[in-house]
């Protein structure tokens, strides 16, 4: 289990416990975090679960693979730490993770 803090587009921070094995996207959907659409449900098909990983955490979350990277390439407002949250799997090592959600998805 990991405590994850989601910073919503409206600035509100939501800190929630997310079970291991779920994705960071699923943690957001289950806890009604605003700003993550995740239309495809986690199939890495739609790029509507874009988040910015807090720079302190990028070592632990890893980096995007080729498929994810090319999806992100077409998302709006991409930054160096952009990820698709459906592709980040939650483990104990992510306890304390902070992600910020962009203003728009897609």
């Amino acid at each position, binding site marked *: 289990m990991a405590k994850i803090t989601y910073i919503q587009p409206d600035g509100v921070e939501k800190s929630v416990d997310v079970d291991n094995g*779920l994705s960071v996207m*699923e943690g957001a*959907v*289950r*806890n*009604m975090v605003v700003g993550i*659409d995740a*239309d*495809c*449900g986690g*199939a*890495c*098909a*739609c*790029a509507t679960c874009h988040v910015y990983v807090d720079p302190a955490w990028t070592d632990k979350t890893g980096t995007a693979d080729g*498929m994810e990277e*090319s*999806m992100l*390439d*077409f998302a709006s407002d991409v930054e160096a730490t952009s990820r698709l949250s459906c592709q980040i799997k939650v483990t104990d090592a992510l306890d304390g993770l902070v992600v910020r959600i962009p203003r728009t998805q897609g």
Partner: protein
Amino acid sequence: MAQSHGVLIIGGGHAAVQAAQSLRQGGYGEPIRIISNEPVAPYQRPPLSKSYLLGELEADRLPLKPDAFYAENNIELTLDTLVSAIEPDKGRVRIERRGARSEHIAFSKLILATGARAITPNLPNDERALNGWFTLRTRADSDALGKWMERPRNAVVVGGGYIGLEVAAALSKSGGSVTVLEAAPRLLSRVSGEEVAAFYAREHAERGVEMRFSTSAFGLFGDVRVDGVRAGGGAARAERIDANLVVFGMGVRPNVELAQSAGIPCEDGVMTDEAGRTAHPDVYAIGDCARAWNRIFRRPLRLESVQNAIDGAKACAAAILDQPAPAAHAPWNWSDQYDIKLQTAGISAGADATVMRGDPDSGSFAVFYLRAGELVACDAINAPPEFLAARQMITRRAKPTPEMLRDTSTPMKTLAAAV
């Protein structure tokens, strides 16, 4: 002013949930009620033919929303309840629940998100009563099929569209022989071009899936359990193909009966404008059951996809709230088979030219479909840039030349920016 009875949504899929969510997000303050005939809260359907069927995605990861979503947003979710009639002029529907008398529920606005149901051959009752044949639409369907998959099997999948192929992939991955029967001379004939069909035929064949084209299913053999399929090029020439598991993936028929009985025009789908408005001012229809005017393709389209359900629901909510319509997007969809990801944008039907980008033998390529020079669709296989660029270009009705599309030395982002 009379008290509002709020919005009543019939159906328990993506469209129903998105409509309720968008109404609340847009500030709708009246009651919202979702009535679903399924026994469980709305869930994701795409995994039912893929990861969920294979047991890779657990049941508790299927729901679209946590239970708290409905309570927190004051959305009343009524499950296991059938709507047997709608009476738009009286502003009410009739519902039936097991062991209870029918009752009426009032609405101010009604949204039909009734979805579609799977087609099967016209089976006589004794064949219909056999165990071991399936369609795939609901979680219960997937659970039943998954359970039957636990035993040794030789499976026949009837229908070489995306659902049929996804099920064939899942069946093949989990062991046992699989034969796909397709009535047309090739796979994916309604939705994709020949290049894509040939690629999938080869990928499945390499994994031992047998394909029989120009072959329709006419009936089932068996005593209590299915032990064969009656199939062939015509009913008179049909032969027996042994099978102890049969899945019909022959497409769907929209659930339009409620609208039809209320006199609302339907033509393979409830006819609507692009915001889901039907011919009746208080009734809307969205998702798989609707044939909605499409601004980009300039014709009414009935689409079966998550994207169509979500975008239709958002447009419908905006219309009910009397807010500006959200921007229209090109339709898109995806299919996962084995380790192959297809992403598709637009509608290829009616195209007059196709352009191949990349080499199918590399496992990553795209086919673009043009009509009168305009990009109308793209099938991208393990090729997200092609898909995403196409989605943008189709939405703004761009006209990239075949030469540009074919030229892999120019990145898709550069190409999309240039047209």
